[in-house]
């Protein structure tokens, strides 16, 4: 039995402690905003926050998050109005949209730690998140907008 806080609510999971957090979130908790893209930590589609830090949920196991606080895209902001989400809409970032929840979670954690990043810092921080549709230019603009308001 693993217990952790998921989007502010304490939850118990009876599955093996070796189960990747991604599948516990998607298949057991039924929160589908967190996406599977590669399963090997190389695309960022599955990004969530564990105690406020961006984590690839396909690489973290249930056992590793015991007692911690996990936030998924559904828990980032009750109305979906986190500054990063607002910036994403302002800049019309998404094409297919599939990578975007992971991108947003990555950007939100990054800006929390580095509120006023340089462009190079943005590029590096976001380089683990693949967007096959190629929205990078707008992603960078949106991160900048969320950090500076312009």
């Amino acid at each position, binding site marked *: 039995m693993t217990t952790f806080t998921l989007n502010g609510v304490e939850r118990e999971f009876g599955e093996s402690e070796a189960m990747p957090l991604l599948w516990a979130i998607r298949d057991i908790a039924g929160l589908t905003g967190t996406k599977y893209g590669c399963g090997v930590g190389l695309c960022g589609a599955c990004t969530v926050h564990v105690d406020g830090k961006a984590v690839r949920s396909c690489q973290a196991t249930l056992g590793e998050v015991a007692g911690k606080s996990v936030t998924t895209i559904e828990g980032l902001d009750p109305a979906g109005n986190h500054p990063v989400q607002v910036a994403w809409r302002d800049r019309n970032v998404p094409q297919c949209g599939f990578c975007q929840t992971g991108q947003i979670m990555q950007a939100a954690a990054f800006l929390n730690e580095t509120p006023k990043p340089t462009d190079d810092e943005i590029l590096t921080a976001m*380089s683990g998140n693949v967007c096959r549709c190629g929205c990078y230019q707008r992603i960078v603009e949106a991160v900048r907008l969320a950090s500076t308001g312009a």
Partner: protein
Amino acid sequence: MLKYIQPHLASAQERVRLAKVTRRGFLGTAGSFAIAAYAVPARAFDTYAVGGSDMPHGIIENPLIFVSIDADGTVTLVAHRSEMGTGSRTSLPMVIADEMEADWTRVKIVQAPGDEPTYGNQDTDGSRSMRHHIQVARKIGGSVRTMLQRAAAQQWGVEPTAVKVEMHQVTGPGGQSVGFGDLAVQAMAQPVPSHAEITYKTEDQFRYIGKGQVQITDLHDITTGAAIYGADVVLPGMKFAVIARPPVVGGKASSYDATETLAVPGVESVHELPYASMPTKFAPLGGIAVVASNTWAALDGRERLKIAWEAGPHGAYSSPAYMAEMIATSEQPGTVARNQGDFDAALAGAAKTFTGTYTQDHIAHIPMEPPAAIAHYTAEGLEIWAPVQSPYAARVDAAAALGLDPAKVKVNVTLLGGGFGRKSKADFVTEAALLSKAVGAPVRVQWAREDDVKHSFYHTTSAERIDVAMDAAGKVTGWRHRSVAPSILSTFAPDEGNVMPLEQGMGMSDLPFGVANIRCESGKALAHTRIGWFRSVSNIPHAWAIGSCVGELAAQLGKDQRAMWLELIGAPRVLDAKAAGLPDDFWNYGEPMSEFPIDTGRLINVLNIAADGIGYGKDLPKGEGIGLAVHRSFVSYVACAARVKVTGGKITVPEMHMAIDCGFAANPERIRSQLEGAAVMGMTVALHSGITFEKGAVEQSNYYDYDVVRSDNFPSVVTHIVSHPFSVHATGVGEPGVPPVPPAIANGLFAATGERRRHLPMGVDA
């Protein structure tokens, strides 16, 4: 009948001037701009022929199928094309809404299930959504507006022409005023007007069409995680399945042992699925399926399967050997796809010749969302939820696999996390259907990324050889292009190694060059894997070869790239198909040549816009260079100017200018996003995308050996959209952006370093 406006009627001078004026506009911003390139007057909406009516089930234009109005005034519009990132789920309803004078904030969009007899063709591919449907969307919107007008006129006893319909409100001459909701029942009971009975909006009256301020309908849900993609549908009692598929197409398991698999907690059952042999069509490859109570248990259980695979007839497929064979074939004469003048005589009389051979590995689409589908089989029939580009084909295939009448199968279309052609082939849907029937419960089939990389319908691999004849003055007198590539046809019919005219017509036989003697040939190549269409299809290898060759000729002849392109393209003109020696079955993307001609004036224009935009010819620091390429595909014209820079031993592209002429630009904002995306995907094709085979199996498996362009090395793109009135037909947008990008990068790399690379992918290391 529409008169197509020939853009080259506007003087070249004026085009340049206008392009310059607008260029000044975008210098101050990071964004991109529409370019008013042709001064042509706005005119009424005259219908024109498009290939949509020749697609299976054609085009349906009955407004009652696509529009409904609730009593509270909410307008519900049906999107019958799949949304995979191009924005068509928003842009087509937006056209209807504008023409019917609906307030976009009161419009709801619902997605049609796979039902072509009702909605018309739903194959969301070929860059067809706007091209085939903008007219009918206007007609549907105009019909409903006319019906509202007539209903109000009857109620008030006035002439319909005295009734105004504006922003969800209907007003009469005596100050009468009602909302759409109040008139809904009477309006929808009116007879549907004919095209001639509809007074269409003039272009200056458009609120949304051509503006770009309407945001995609799923934007909010995408940013909150509420948007539903293929794997996000959850049904009560649903099982989770993954499948171990034969590594070689046409192979099968000679034996397997699932003892350890079945011992994994959560794993419920194991099923062997029927195998496919080539031509597979869209049938699943077969294999051993593991069904579990969650995806991880299924994945873990699959790891523990012990399977002895039999390779079957394609177990010897090896990419290096196959490439050598294709190159050898390209040295021999092939089947002639186009013959203009006498290339042999030009070659015999040439003072100078040039030969270039350009090759490409296979490509897998790897949409961000790997294939996934949910099926629920019951005694009543089969219901499916899936991210499919061709929902009706998915329905017919699944019905056939289960021996059901298609009337008993429903396919619900979710959002697609990218498609790029992969999700036109619904093998993953049939897998879910077979498994749901086998276990008697709803089943979600999830493809791992490795499955997606290893079991795609691959973009063809190719060898393209171009021989050029020149006279003593360096003028090109002859051009022979031989293409050797396994065909998409091999996936559908017994393979004879021949490509289809439509593949030849994607950027090879339609070469828009003003060279006197042109011959295009195709050599035989038998397929040993499933060949499918990937965004831009055969245009990628063809444009790669042609664009690289132009760059090489420029270097040989000491000309700049723009001058070389302009010289080869020749005068602005509409290509005369007969005189050019094009075959009678020349495809032209299914569009009538009379309405969608090959117009070199438009090609030249986009080339100049991109080259001017990036400042082609300016001095650059050492280690930097600009490459140019231009290509017509999906009846659109796209140029790419790429500034390539070698940094830290890596090839980078800090700046790219993309110029597109896609006729009337219905949603410029989404056209820009498509071109930005095409620049990134084109760069991925140029530097990264190589699928290779050994012993019949794919060698790559996930991002560590099949990577893509990421945010630490992406091109900053400025997009230029040539501005046209509605009378210049809207053409394709999703696909035509990619083909010019790889050759532009190769030409830029050559300009930067003096090194010429002739194989795709080129690799990211300089």
